[in-house]
């Protein structure tokens, strides 16, 4: 521990000052997000290849997705990004009450996204669109459509897992914020969780047109 009498709460002794500590944690999170880009990137490459191989099947299969629910979910996620960034802003200004309120709002909106997603998934189960032995798709593109739905479930599933982890992280931060862990000087966990949350939003920004808007014209 630092013996400096003026060292701020949350200041780790191996950093010169709080600014340097904040920069280090931000950069660390961006490094993690770069690995996340590559993690999701593999699925996006697979999507690009299979879509170029089976354009008609992807067009037909995509029409089976619920555009309204997908669009609503995009809106819900953008709202949650707004509340998240306002949570970070209140943390920067040391407004604990606002921070707590915006964290709750973000958790609620994130959960709403997952509930809507669950409705979509259950619909797909009823329509026998889960890839596997029970998969049914009328028309000449059955097997190729199955590939679309494999990618749909892997991409949205991986995204949903990230949402669940994000909600878990925010819940812990909410508990800590209520107990007064964060100040205007020390709020890096909120900042870094915000970066993660916005990244997951960005992934959805690409998933939505790729999966739901293939061939609406």
């Amino acid at each position: 521990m630092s013996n400096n009498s003026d060292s701020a709460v949350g200041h780790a002794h191996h950093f010169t000052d709080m600014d340097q500590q904040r920069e280090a944690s931000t950069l660390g999170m961006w490094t993690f997000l770069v690995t996340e880009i590559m993690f999701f990137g593999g699925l996006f490459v697979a999507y690009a290849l299979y879509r170029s191989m089976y354009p008609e099947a992807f067009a037909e299969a995509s029409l089976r997705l619920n555009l309204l629910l997908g669009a609503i979910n995009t809106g819900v996620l953008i709202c949650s990004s707004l509340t998240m960034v306002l949570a970070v802003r209140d943390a920067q200004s040391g407004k604990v009450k606002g921070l707590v309120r915006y964290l709750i709002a973000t958790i609620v909106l994130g959960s709403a996204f997952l509930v809507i997603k669950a409705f979509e998934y259950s619909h797909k189960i009823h329509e026998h669109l889960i890839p596997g032995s029970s998969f049914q798709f009328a028309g000449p593109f059955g097997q190729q459509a199955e590939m679309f739905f494999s990618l749909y479930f892997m991409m949205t599933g991986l995204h949903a897992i990230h949402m669940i982890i994000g909600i878990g992280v925010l819940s812990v931060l909410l508990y800590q914020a209520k107990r007064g862990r964060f100040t205007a000087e020390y709020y890096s966990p909120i900042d870094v969780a915000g970066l993660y949350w916005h990244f997951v939003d960005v992934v959805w920004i690409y998933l939505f047109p790729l999966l739901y808007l293939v061939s609406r014209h």
Partner: protein
Amino acid sequence: MSQHVIPQKVYYLVFVTLILLTLVTVDVAFYNFGFLNIYIAMGIATVKATIVALYFMHLRYNPRLTWLFAGAGILWLFIMFVLTIADYITR
């Protein structure tokens, strides 16, 4: 630098832009531009992703080192796309 508190107005403006671009991308998908549809959709998505990164993720107010890291992510993603697809289309 990271203590920089950005006016709320900026965040609301970004939010409204993101919602509007979502509506535009849905609307534009109903018109047939042939092979251009996918490029329009990806273009709008990239504009949205960029303003999320610049304002919500504070990239604009971050040191250039953070820019370098974010850029490295995009560069490596680009390499993965180009090499994989180049392999497939030349088989």
